[in-house]
Structures are given as structure tokens and as C-alpha cells.
């Protein structure tokens, strides 16, 4: 039984390692400024922890194969020196890994709302995403969902019609972003908690009702991506998806122009 068990553990360890090395499914190609650093950390984590995984499974196999010996010197009830040494080694590895990663978290959470950052409000509603751009005045209008939200009348977010800064706001069902410009998202939710996840941007943050959460990233590659909801929000959770389009600065300006004239037209009629 001992031999079979040892072989089984070896087989499982190798198969697991193989699965990660071959990885038929893996990170989608990164498309934001911070993702390179994050990916590097992820790879470091997988190598360190994968190494520890193989090491400990090997230790288990070795322990099972070392049959009993009679020597009096083997530690029978314990050995403080080995114990302390092991605790120190594992403390250094785990804390070293942990502390060296913290600055990345601080970079990710303080994206620096620079002057040129594009502000976009993201609102999660069961089971739909809305993206609002401030329009020509650069200011987002006031929102009072409970009072003004009329999805069937073209005002799903409840933009206050009496607030002049809201008149030129653009509401879109897709997130369109100019490449290489930092984006400052304001995350909101109208009913329950949702979560914005764009795998290629390595970006995820909850949209919590009652809170305005600022978070951001800088897209670096043009293309189309999917934004999905990762916080269970009800029966339509799995289809709460939106398109993210990263385009050139010129294309973005053009898109904004088309959107505002469409908005103008709809407000005239």
C-alpha cells in the first residue's frame, strides 16, 4: 500500500504541476498599464508556491518511504531547533512575499486622479451596466435615482433634470475609452452590490449601493473586451455583461461627438 500511495502522490503532484505549466486556459493578454507588474507578481507567486507544493508533496512521499529506524538520535518527542528553524524559514518566505507585494496594491488603489484622467461613472443596475461621461462641461450632473430614474423614458440613472450640468451628460451601455489615458471610474449601484471585472485590464472592484467608489486603470491596447459582474446580484448575474472598447484618442473624440449630438436630438424631441 505504501508504494502505491507514494506513486499516487507523485503522480498527482506532477499532474498538478503539469496542468499549470501547460495551462490550456490562462490569463488573457494584458491591456492596461499596471497589468505587467501584476502579472510578474502572479508568476512569482505561482513559482514560489508551486515550488513549495512540490517540495511538501515530495516530503510527504519521503516520510512515507523512510521506514522505521532504531537509532536513538532521531527526534522522538520533538526538536526545538528544527521547529524554530522551520517557523523562521516559512515566516521569511511568506512575509517576504507578502510585504514585497504591498506597494503594488498601493499603486493600484491610488491611481492618482491626475488632471488628464478621464472621468466615467459606472452604475450597476440589476442586470445592466450604464456608463456616464460628463460631456462638454466636464461635470457629471446630480443623480437622484429614487426620484427621477425612468429606464423607459431614457433616464435610467435618474439624472436630475433641473441640474444644468447634467444636460450634456452622455449615458452609454458600452464603456468606450481612449487608449493610454488614465481613467477614473466612479463606481455606483442602484439596487444591490455588483462588481466590475475586466480581466484584460486586471481590474476588479465592487459597486456598492450608497457609496461612490473611485478606482481606475490606464488602458494601453486598443480592442474590444468584456466587462462582467463578479458579485452575485440576482437571477441575471451571469448575463450582466458590457462591452469595453479601447480606441484611439481621435476615435474617442469622434464617438463623444456623435453621442452628444444624439443626446441633443433626443432632448429636442
Amino acid at each position, binding site marked *: 500500500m505504501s508504494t502505491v500511495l507514494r506513486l499516487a502522490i507523485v503522480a498527482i503532484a506532477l499532474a498538478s504541476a503539469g496542468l499549470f505549466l501547460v495551462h490550456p486556459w490562462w490569463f*488573457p493578454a494584458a491591456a492596461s498599464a499596471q497589468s505587467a507588474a501584476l502579472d510578474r507578481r502572479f508568476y512569482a507567486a505561482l513559482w514560489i*508556491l508551486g515550488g513549495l507544493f512540490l517540495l511538501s508533496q515530495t516530503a510527504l512521499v519521503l516520510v512515507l518511504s523512510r521506514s522505521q529506524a532504531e537509532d536513538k538520535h532521531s527526534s522522538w518527542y520533538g526538536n526545538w531547533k528544527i521547529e524554530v528553524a522551520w517557523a523562521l524559514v*516559512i515566516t521569511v518566505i511568506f512575509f517576504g512575499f507578502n510585504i514585497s507585494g504591498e506597494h503594488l496594491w498601493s499603486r493600484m488603489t491610488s491611481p492618482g486622479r491626475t488632471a488628464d484622467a478621464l472621468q466615467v461613472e459606472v452604475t450597476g443596475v440589476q442586470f445592466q451596466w450604464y456608463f456616464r461621461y460628463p460631456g462638454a462641461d466636464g461635470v457629471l450632473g446630480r443623480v437622484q435615482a*429614487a426620484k427621477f430614474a425612468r429606464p423607459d423614458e431614457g433616464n435610467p440613472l435618474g439624472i436630475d433634470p433641473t441640474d444644468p450640468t447634467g444636460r450634456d451628460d452622455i449615458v452609454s451601455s458600452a464603456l468606450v475609452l481612449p487608449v493610454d489615458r488614465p481613467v477614473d471610474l466612479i463606481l455606483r449601484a442602484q439596487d444591490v*452590490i455588483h462588481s466590475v471585472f475586466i480581466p484584460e485590464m486586471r481590474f476588479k472592484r465592487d459597486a456598492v449601493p450608497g457609496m461612490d467608489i473611485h478606482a481606475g486603470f490606464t488602458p494601453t491596447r486598443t480592442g474590444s473586451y468584456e466587462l462582467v459582474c463578479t458579485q452575485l446580484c440576482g437571477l441575471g448575474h451571469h448575463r450582466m455583461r458590457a462591452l469595453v472598447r479601447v480606441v484611439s484618442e481621435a476615435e474617442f473624440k469622434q464617438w463623444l461627438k456623435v453621442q452628444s449630438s444624439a443626446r441633443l436630438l433626443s432632448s429636442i424631441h
Partner: protein
Amino acid sequence: MRSDSSISQRLQTSRLRRYIFTTDHKVIGIQYFFLSLAAVLIGAVLSALMRLHIVWPKAPAMRPETYLSLVTMHGTLMVFFVLSTVPQNGFGSYFLPLQLGAREMHFPRLNAAGFWITLASFLVLIAAFHVPGGPSLAGWTQYAPLSALAQAGPGQGLGTDLWLVSIGLFSLGSMVSAVNFIVTPILRRAPGMTLMRMPLTCWAWFVTGVLILLAFAVLLAAAIMLMCDRHAGTSFFVPGGLVMSGKPVDHRGGSPLLWQHLFWFFGHPEVYIAILPAMGLISHLVSVFARKPVFSYKVMVAATIAIGALGFMVWGHHMFVSGMNPYAGFAFSALTTAIAVPSAVEVFNWLATMYRGRIRYRTPTLFSIGFISLFVAGGLTGPVLAQPALDAYVHDTYFVVAHFHLIMAMAGLFAIFAATYFWFPKMFGRMMSERLGAVHFWITLFGAYSTFMPMHLLGIAGHPRRYAELTGVQYVAAMAPLQKFVTVAAIVTICGQIVFLMNFFWSLRKGPTAEANPWECTTLEWSLPSPTPARGFGDKAPVVSHGPYEYHSQPERGYVMQNAAPREDQTLI
């Protein structure tokens, strides 16, 4: 004639008193065991249905809300009624007094009350399948406002009320029973059973008792608060200005994050409530079956206490992307890393205990070794999830599902199986089949790894969890082949459990009669005949003169029972 019937009636009442409405810790332990068995069977069937549905939506066909209600029920049954019930209240109720040399738990009626409240909680939970709208669809974490508002979806009405009542009852039952796990080791140890002579199982049950008392108190409070939000007009968790299905919501001033803080203040210690008794048990079993003392007994005790204490300081690692202040992330991240150290020390000590031991490969040994392998496999993704930057990417994806199923569900289950095969002779007086036990082990070991290892890749590729259908998102739909593989592996694993059920029920009636001490253990429960006589130690408490793990380096000297007469050359350990 009349006296005959009155005798049989009295016999019947006494049988009822002995096997059902009893304060006997042994019977209560077995009652908890069968309650968990029922829960685990339902939970496993639900997971099979879920796995089948997401890859073959037509077989079985179900609405998304039905799928999500299965998610809720599977999680609730498995976490509460299996993982927090059988290792602690099941085996603990039965064996804590016996291992301490006590006649009973210190408060036998509280012990019985705990079981009956838990059974009521179970029935209330199951009742949700039969109400309009079905069970709650908000998952076992019940995040507000989804859980606070009946209009948030089907199942969020009566189904959620039942969930909250059930969890409130469960918290109460757990706290009531936890009192015994704290008081009995303090007050009821047999003469000579010093704290440092307690088996590590008892230490684990004791620390877990403290965890249950503190953590479930908070969950109970949170459940009552949420119930008030739903029915009494309070707004603890619901902020103002919400609109749901086009209608304004009449609440203001609450905080959705408050629920998460309260829930995880319970929820993370809960993980240790599930796994600490398992870890204690594995420490015990590796020593028994390697015929060697536990390596660094005192360090193991310290590690158990450290894990219990640190377990209360790490809850925020569930909330890195929740909108909690990112600075808090640093603290929770460091504390979470700290808890990995005593866990790693325990793993090291298990290996060191087996090192150069004379390992006897019985079914409990196999499951203990499987536990260690799975515990490491699941534990090592912990440092990824403890790091906010990395966690943010894999949070709420299958990566997390893989992590906690390996370390909590699978390792926890392996410990439960090890305990069942190990203590079955003492509980039922018969041995389980070793051959079927081995078959069961191999299916479950390969099944566990094949089901949960690939899930890491799904998570890394960005697959969110709790998706009722995979076709709505393109990149998710592309992962169907791997999801199918996982489903097949899961179904095979679940079917493999039939071998366990066959073995269990066959051995119950036909298994070979067990001797008093078939595994040659040192702890006190094995000094009694098998099955344990109803009176336990009776009026004569055993006198303890030895530590719990006196397995000798020379095979001819065998092992020393804890209550054996003191040796002349005895030195204190």
C-alpha cells in the same frame, strides 16, 4: 395482560429516552453524525445538479434562480450542517468526555438542547425548498441589500426568511453546545489528566468551542439585524436612495459593508471552526498509525491556540475589493499571512511525526495522508489570496472556489472520513471493511484533485463563480471543455461515495466484531469495551498517569495506555 402492555410501554419509553430524547453524550454524538450524513447527501446531490446544469443546460434544465438557490443551499448545508457540525459536535460530543475520562459532558441537557435546536434549524432550512419562490438565491454569504429586500428576486421573500431563521437557530444551537466544549475540559478531566496530557483532539475541540461561542454570537446578532431590516423597518444594511425593479426602496442610512464585516467576523473563524477539529484529529491519527509520539506536542497546542486567536483578525481579506478602505487591506493582509505560519508548523509536525515511524496503512491512515496532501494543496493558494493586489484579480472567481474546496471541503471531508473509519468500532462495536475503505479512498483522492485542481485555471482565466449559465459571456463560454471535465470528475467522485455508504451500513450490521482497542491506541476511550457501554466509565473514573502519545521507539515495548499504572522509571514529559 394489562401489566404486559404497561411493561412494554415502559420499555418503549425507556428506549425513546435512551436513543432519542437522551442526554447521553454518546447518543447525541451519533445523532449529530446522522444529521450531518443527511445534510452531506443532500448537499452532494445539489452540487451534482449544479455541475451538470452549467455544462449541459438541458440536463437538468432549470431557471437561473433555481441554480442560484442550489448554490445557496449547497453552501449552507455543507458549511454549517456538515463541516461545522460533525467534526465538533458529532465526534466531539461522543469522544471529548471519553478521552478526558469524564462520565458525561458538564451540562448534558445543554448538549441535548444543542442537538434539537440544530435539527430544528436543519428542518427550517430544508423547508425553503417547498415555499413559493424557493430557497434564497443570495448564496451562503447573503450579502445585503440583495438579502435585505424581498423584491430583489425570487427566493428573497419567504425563502430568505427561512434561511435567516435557520441560521439564527443554528447559531443558538452551536453556542449552547459550545459551552460544554469549553467547560468540560476545564472541570471534568479525570484524575491525572493534566492539560498537557490531553489528546490534541481535545485541545482542538476546546479551542473550537471558544471560537464557536464568540463567532456565532456575532452571526446571530447579524441575522437578527437583517431580519429587522426585512420586517421591522430598520435600515442597518440598506442605504437610502435605492431603486429596485423601477420602484424606490423605502430605506435610508444603512451600510451594505456593515453586513460584510459582521458576516466575515463570523465567517472567517468559521473556517477554523470547520478545520481545527480536523487538524487535531489528524495530529492524533498520524501519531497512532505511525506508532510514534506527536512531534512537538506543546508546539501543536500552541499552534492550535494561535490559529484560533489569529482567526478572529483576518476577516477583512474577504473584502479587499468590497470598497473597504484600501489601507485596511494592508493590515488584514499581514495578519492573514501570519496565520499561515502556525498552519505550516502543524504540517511540518505531521510529517515529522510520521518520519521514521512504523506506519500502519489502514483506512484512517490513508485518509489522514490524503488530508495532509490536500491541506497543503489548498493552503498554498492562501498567500495569493492574502495579497490584495493578487486577490483582486482572482476574487469571486473559480480560483477561490478551488482554494476553499481543497483546504476546507476536501481536507475537512478527508478528516471526517478518517474519523469515521477510526472510531466506527468504538461507536458501533464493529469494524468497517478495509478493502472497501481503500476503494473509497482512491476514488475520493483522485476525484478531489481532478475536480478542484483545474478550477484554478478557470479562475486565472477570469471565470466568475456563481454563474448559472456560461453562454452569456464569450470568454467564459470558451472554457466549456474544462468545465465539462470538472463536472465529470465531480460526478465520479460523488458516485464513489456510494462505496462509503455501502461499507458503512453493511458494517453496521455485518462487520466483524471489534475488540476493545483494535488500533492499539493509548487514549482513554479505547480502555472501554467496544461499543462503548451506555454507562461509559460508570462511577469509576480512570486514573491517568501517562501522556496521550506514548508509542515506544522499540516495537517490543509497544505502547502505554494513558491509564496504565505508572512506570517506576517514569519521567514527566
